[in-house]
Each structure stands twice: as C-alpha cells, then as structure tokens.
C-alpha cells in the first residue's frame, strides 16, 4: 500500500502527515469542527444531569435532576470519552497518551456511540411511554449535543490519506475510511512497575465493564450497554490504546495472566445477587468448553460439530458417581475421583470417535462428530430401562445431584468471605475458575510447545507438515482427544452447577448455550487460536440471549444470520490471530512483499501438479 503521491503537511495540529485528499466528510474549518465536537459532547454530558422523562415508569428512574441513572450513566461515560478524545486533539499536555494511534477517528466513533445510546434511550422512552411528549428537556439537550458532536467529528480531517487507487470514494466509502486509523508508533519504555500498574488498571476496567454488563437489570440498559461498549471499544482500539496495552501484556505475560485471574477472582465479590453470580458461573463453563474446542478447531484445524457431547459424557459420568439418589450405579466418588472419571470417559470417547475418522479428509470428521453428537443424545434417551438398559433414566436425566463438599467446604451454602457473602453460584464460579485456569494453562503450554507448532503446521498444510516429518494422524488424534478430555473436565463441574443432567442439554443447536453450534460460534466470534477470543465470544454469546429475553423467539434466527454475516465480513473473529487475519484477508497487507516483475526469461513458473 505504498503511495507515491507527494505528501505535504497540512495545518493539522498533530504531527500526522496527511494528503490534500484527506478532506473531512463535512467540509468545515478545522477549528470550528473541533469546537463543535467539544461543545456537543459537553452538552451531551450536561444533559445527563437533567431529567430525561417525567415518570419513573421507564426503568432506571431518569427523572432525577443532578443525579444520572440507568441509561443516562451510559451517555455520561460515552460523552466523557468523546470529550477526552476531542480535547486530546488540541494537543493539551497530559492527554497525548490517549491517542497514540488515530486522532480523529476515535472521536467520531465515541460520538457515534453517544448518539446511538442517547437516541436509543429517547426512542425507547417515546415508545414505551407513548410519544415524544414524555421526553423532558434533559433528553433533548443530550440528544442534540450528541448530534452536534457527531457533525463536528465528521468535520474533522480523516486520520489516514485516501488510497492512491481510489482518491475520491463515494460517501459510504469515505465514512468507512474516516473510521480507520493508523497503527500507533512504538511506545516509550516506561519503568516496569508502571507498566504492570497499567496492565492491572486495564484489567480492572475490563472487570468493571464486564460486571456492569452482567448486572444490568433490564434489557434497555443492556442494549444501551452493548451500544456504548461496542463503540467505545472500537474507539479505544482506533486510538491505539489497545495496541499499546497488548504490547505491554506481550511483554509481561505472566503478570497479565495473573492480573486476568485476579480480576476473575474478584468478580463474585462484585455481585450480591445469586442470579448474576450464576450467570457468571455459566459463562465460565461455556467459555472453558469453548477454549477446549479452540484446541481442536483453532490450533489443529479440525472441525468438531458434536463437541458438546464430550461435555455431556463428562457430566453424565460425574452425575453417575456423584451419589445422586437417581444414579443407577449407586456409588459415591470423592470429587477428584469424579473429575478423573469424567475426563477419562470423555478421553476414551474422543479416541474412539477420532481414531477411525482422523485418517481421512477433514470434512468427514465434521460429519462424524455431528453424528456422534446426535447419537449421544439419542443413546442417553434410550438407556432408560425401556428401550435399552437402564443407565441414564432416559429423558428424565439424573436429577438431584448433591452439592460438592471440598475439604469440609460445602459449596451449596453461602459463606462469608472477607465480609462478603459468597452464594452457592459464587462458590461454583470460583471452583469453575480453577478448571478454567487449568484449561488456559494447558492451552497456552501446548500451543507454544513443539506439539502446538505441529498442530498449526497441520492446520495450514497437512501435506507439507507430513513432509516435514510430522506424524499427522497421531498429532490430530492427540488434539482431538485433548479437546474431548478438557470438555469432560468442565462437564463434571457443570453437572453439579445445574443440579441435573438431561439429554436435551447436549444438542447441536438450541436456545441455551452451551450447545455445539454456540460453542463453535463462540470460538469463531472470539477468534480462532487465541486464548482471550473464545472467552470474550462465550461471554457475549451467553449474555446476549440471557439479557434480551424479549427476543427469545427470534434468538436462534438472529444467531444464524449473525453467523453468516460474521463469516462474510469478519471471519477472523473479534480477537484476531495475526496468522488468521493474513489468511482471510490476503490483500492490502503491509508486510506482504511487493510484487516485483519477473526478470526476463523467468518462465515456467506454472503451478506444478495442478
């Protein structure tokens, strides 16, 4: 993407070099545009302190003047972010660190987020209370402020010069272009204690945002949260802050891992409501299983469409030896033995399914695992003593799985820890976290080992990998069996968290995650082959259906559409593995060597063996 257009410095107050073509979308004088943005976002911020509506029938009580609540808080946060980014553009000392990458695109994104959430709030109030008359002046102040800020931000010069090939794209192309930003330069070296502090602060903010999302009490607030979180996250990314942070985390990997787990351990202490802690525990189960699937799909490139069955094997194994009165075996194993049983049972199934199919082309594996997932469900239904031997009680499943007691600590009852009451779900959340840590460690260690590199090699080109002396079949089987084993591990905890196991919990696609389709979607949405990707993907895929109950009917439909759009427009997922990103977008890469014309006489470079 080299441009040979002469570049000259514009009157931009930043040091950014831009071409004359980099005109803003709305032609405004630069000072006026920035002034408008600052004024608009300040107006939106002030508006949140006024009443937005006259009645507290709209959830969140937006009637109080001087004390923002509910959706107002989201507008407040968004407009504060816009204001900060816009002020950073003036070159005010002390704010420069906010925008190491893009200067103006984060302003535009944040302003759009404010407009989105404020507009949504105004629309929701008008729709639920019947008409725009229900809006108090505060809402109009914020709304108009947000609109002004967006207009101003559209008047700011774009961060990157237009592509030489297409200097004057049509409007939509220009808007899209205005949202892009250059990569940040390398950061100054800071003292390492400060860097660690920054990492800790980053995870603190992450934990706060996540906990806020889980404890949103009504769906309007959750939608607003999604809008502002999506725009805010993109704005922070465009500003280059995320790149800076990930450069730091790459430098201090163990600290990062520690900080992440510390943040995760803190989560139940932010929740007083057992229901929200249960959501946390379920997200953790879902995320752990998704991470296990990521070993199979992301690292080794094996498509497993029946992965939830391995979770089911682990859960059924644990339930049968849990001492539940409905268990047909009637033995009670201690928890560690039950975990081993579940993991080993899943491992055996993984080998039995994998051994015949992994010798063949990958597509067969997809369909065999899909079949296995279905057969598992059917078999569990049939082993009811009526149409088969009595093992699983058929469709009734195994209910009344007793609560765990580990080292005299009963996970079923609330405990007071550090002055905070940990509920049953919070206990299980912490137990599950131990398993998540195990799975993360296994994933990380194996991905960086010789085996992990061999998996990636097989994923990229099995023929070449085999030629390099890699035993493709054995390594694929290892990945598959390891994935199965990790799912079984998670299943043993899941059986206890959900009190009962039934065949219907483990189907291919259903409204409640985890099921095979959702697991795969979590891995792909988050980003294949990464650790944080499936965790984020699982959290989003669990929270969105759980929080937006009103669209329950459309949920699967929207899920299917989202899956197709995702594959079309961002197949590498939210957290992109560098290799995947290159693979999916093979053009326009900066680090692809330039196409040089072949020297004379260099013929005969036809694709051999095509």
């Amino acid at each position: 993407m080299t441009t040979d257009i002469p570049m000259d410095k514009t009157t931009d107050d930043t040091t950014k070099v831009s071409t004359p073509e980099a005109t803003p979308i709305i032609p405004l004088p630069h000072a006026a545009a920035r002034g408008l943005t600052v004024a608009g976002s300040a107006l939106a911020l002030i508006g949140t302190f006024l009443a937005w509506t006259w009645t507290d029938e709209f959830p969140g009580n937006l009637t109080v003047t001087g004390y923002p609540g509910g959706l107002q808080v989201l507008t407040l946060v968004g407009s504060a972010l816009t204001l900060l980014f816009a002020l950073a553009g003036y070159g005010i000392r002390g704010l420069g660190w906010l925008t190491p990458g893009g200067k103006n695109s984060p302003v535009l994104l944040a302003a759009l987020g404010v407009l989105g959430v404020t507009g949504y709030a105004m629309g929701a109030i008008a729709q639920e209370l019947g008409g725009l008359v229900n809006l108090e002046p505060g809402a109009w102040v914020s709304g108009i402020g947000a609109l002004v800020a967006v207009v101003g931000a559209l008047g700011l010069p774009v961060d990157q010069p237009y592509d030489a090939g297409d200097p004057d794209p049509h409007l939509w192309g220009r808007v899209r272009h205005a949202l892009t930003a250059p990569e940040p330069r390398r950061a100054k070296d800071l003292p390492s204690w400060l860097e660690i502090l920054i990492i800790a602060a980053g995870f603190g903010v992450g934990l706060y945002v996540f906990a806020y999302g889980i404890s949103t009490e009504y769906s309007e607030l959750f939608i607003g949260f999604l809008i502002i979180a999506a725009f805010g996250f993109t704005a922070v990314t465009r500003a280059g802050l995320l790149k800076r942070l990930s450069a730091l985390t790459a430098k201090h990997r163990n600290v990062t891992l520690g900080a992440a787990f510390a943040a995760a351990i803190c989560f139940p202490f932010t929740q007083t409501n057992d229901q929200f802690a249960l959501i946390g525990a379920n997200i953790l189960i879902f995320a752990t299983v998704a991470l296990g699937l990521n070993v199979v799909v992301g690292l080794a490139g094996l498509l497993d469409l029946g992965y939830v069955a391995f979770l089911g094997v682990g859960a059924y194994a644990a339930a049968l030896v849990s001492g539940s009165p409905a268990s047909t075996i009637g033995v009670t194993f201690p928890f560690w033995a039950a975990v081993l049983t579940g993991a080993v049972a899943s491992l055996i199934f993984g080998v039995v399914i994998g051994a015949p199919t992994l010798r063949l082309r990958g597509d067969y594996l997809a369909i065999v695992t899909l079949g296995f997932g279905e057969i598992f469900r059917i078999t569990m239904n049939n082993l009811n003593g009526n149409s088969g031997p009595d093992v699983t009680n058929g469709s009734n499943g195994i209910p009344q799985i007793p609560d765990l007691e580990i080292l005299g600590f009963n996970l079923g009852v609330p405990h007071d820890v550090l002055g905070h009451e940990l509920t049953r779900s919070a206990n299980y959340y912490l137990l599950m976290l131990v398993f998540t840590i195990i799975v993360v460690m296994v994933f990380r260690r194996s991905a960086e080992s010789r085996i992990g590199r061999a998996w990636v090699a097989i994923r990229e080109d099995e023929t070449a990998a085999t030629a390099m002396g890699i035993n493709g079949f054995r390594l694929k089987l290892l990945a598959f069996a390891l994935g199965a084993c990790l799912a079984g591990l998670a299943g043993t905890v899941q059986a206890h968290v959900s009190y009962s196991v039934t065949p219907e919990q483990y189907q291919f696609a259903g409204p409640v995650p985890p099921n095979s389709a959702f697991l795969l979607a979590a891995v792909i949405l988050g980003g294949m082959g990464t650790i944080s990707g499936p965790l984020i993907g699982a959290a989003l895929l669990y929270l969105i259906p759980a929080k937006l109950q009103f669209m329950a009917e459309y949920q699967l439909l929207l899920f299917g559409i989202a899956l197709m759009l995702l594959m079309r427009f961002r197949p590498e997922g939210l957290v992109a593995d560098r290799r995947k990103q290159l693979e999916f977008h093979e053009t326009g890469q900066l680090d692809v060597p330039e196409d040089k014309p072949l020297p004379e006489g260099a013929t005969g470079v036809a694709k051999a063996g095509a």
Partner: protein
Amino acid sequence: MNELPQQLANGLILGAMYGLIAIGYTMVYGIVQLINFAHGEIFMVGGFGALTVWMVLPDGFGLGAAIPLMIIGGVLVSVAVGTAAERFAYRPLRGAPRLAPLITAIGLSIVLQQAVWMWFPDAKKDVPFPRFQGDPVEILGANIQRGDIFVLIAAPLCMIALGLFVNKTRSGRGMQATAQDPDTAKLMGINTDRIIVMAFAIGAAFAAVAAVAYGLKNGQVGFRMGFLMGLKAFTAAVLGGIGNIYGAMLGGLVLGVAESLATGYIGEIPGMDLFGGGAWKDVWAFSLLILVLLFRPQGLLGERVADRA
C-alpha cells in the same frame, strides 16, 4: 411383520429417500468440495412448499392429480432457496478457507429452520401432510403402503433422468469436467459459475422430490425433519463414495436396508435384546458410517473426484 421381504421393502423405500437427498450432497461436494450442511433444510423447505400447494388447492382435488403440482411447488421452493444460498451465502466465500463456508452453512441451516418454525402457519409442531387412503398393496410378499409407491417410482425415474443429463448433454459433460478440474474447465470455455448453480439446483430439486415422498410416507412434515434426514443422506453419500452420483443412490439404498434390518433383527441376537427396535436405528446407521470409514474410506463405488492436495 418381521419377515425379510417386508424389512427389505421398508429399507428400500427409506433408502430411496436417502439416496435422492444424497445426490444433492454428492453433486455439490464433487464440484466445489463443500459440504452443503444446509441441504437437509433445503429438503425440509421443499416439503413445506409441496404442502403449501396442497393447502391452496380447492377442496375435493384428488391427491393423485395434485401430486405433480405439489412436486412442482416443492421443487420451485427448494431450487429457489438452494440457488439463493449458493449466490448469496457460498459464492462470496469461494476461495476462503474451508471452515468459512461450512460455518455459513450451519448458520443458514439454523435460519431456514427458524424461519419455517416462525412464519409457516402452525409449523411450531409437525404439520399433517396428505396421504393416500386405502389398503397396502402386496408386492413380492411385502406390504407396501400406497404412499410409498411414489418414491419407488420417482427415485428410478430421477436417476435415469440424471444419468442421461450428466452423460448426454453439453451441460452435463461440462459438469463432469468442472468436477475433475475447475480451472481447466474454465479455460475450455465452460461457465463454471453456471455449472455450480446447476449442481445446487439439481440437488435441491431431488431433495424436494424426496420431501414429497417423506410427507406421503409419514403423513406429516416438520421444521426439524431436515436435520436427521440430512445427516443420514450425507452418510449415504459417503457410503457410496462422495462425488459419485450413482454411489449416492446405492449408498442410500444400502443405508436404508441396513437400518431397517437392524431395527428388525438386532433385537433377536442373543444378548442384544435391549438394543433392537426403532429407538436405536440411528445409532446403527451411524455405526455403519464409522465402519465404512474404517474399512473402505473411499466408499462403496469409490470417489469420482480426484483428490487435489
């Protein structure tokens, strides 16, 4: 009832349906190496298309006379959905890593199921499909329901037509060429895009015929019926050798007969008495797939596609 001819007949009827659906998998796979995971759903919408035709026909219209119209209706819906899927979901992803179209197919399959579930009147549960009244006909010692005769006639006709099309027409030969080597086929002036659309359309049309047969046999269609039928049909396609259209039909018949025999006889094997009966038939069909993959991974008739590594 447990006599061998009866079981064989049941198996053949079931197998012919599997075979018709398997054609769609095998043709698409043979040409673009894509498992059209949504094909089971294309089968399902074909059934609903045929049912819609029956519902709009005036009362008193005989089922025998309605069947050709219902087939046309079903085929139209299936082909429309199938080609639209090709155009808007799969074509943009041609050249992307293989995972991408497969996941799109999963998404599409969920969308189609949910769309029918939500918008077809009363489709939240199984919807009744017209059936032929009257006693079963006895052929070679097996009782065959009147509705089942349809598939026994339709499947061979479809296979003959397909065989003629592929071997005798220009487009058919173009299809073979594209399956062998798409790049060279393109250089020879074959419009491979058109060939791919055609493969999707033929597969969808056959699936619609199978869906009419399914409805006539079971007396109902449901939004969920595509999943298991699609899975079995894919098994049939692998069984016969994927990419091979005759193999698909053969695989379907073998799978159907094996399933029916397993239902009838496995329970009589000493020690297996609890594993017989209809509840386990899917498990046995699936075990057959694993066995075939173990011992003859190229399928019964062998793959037609050259393995391009």
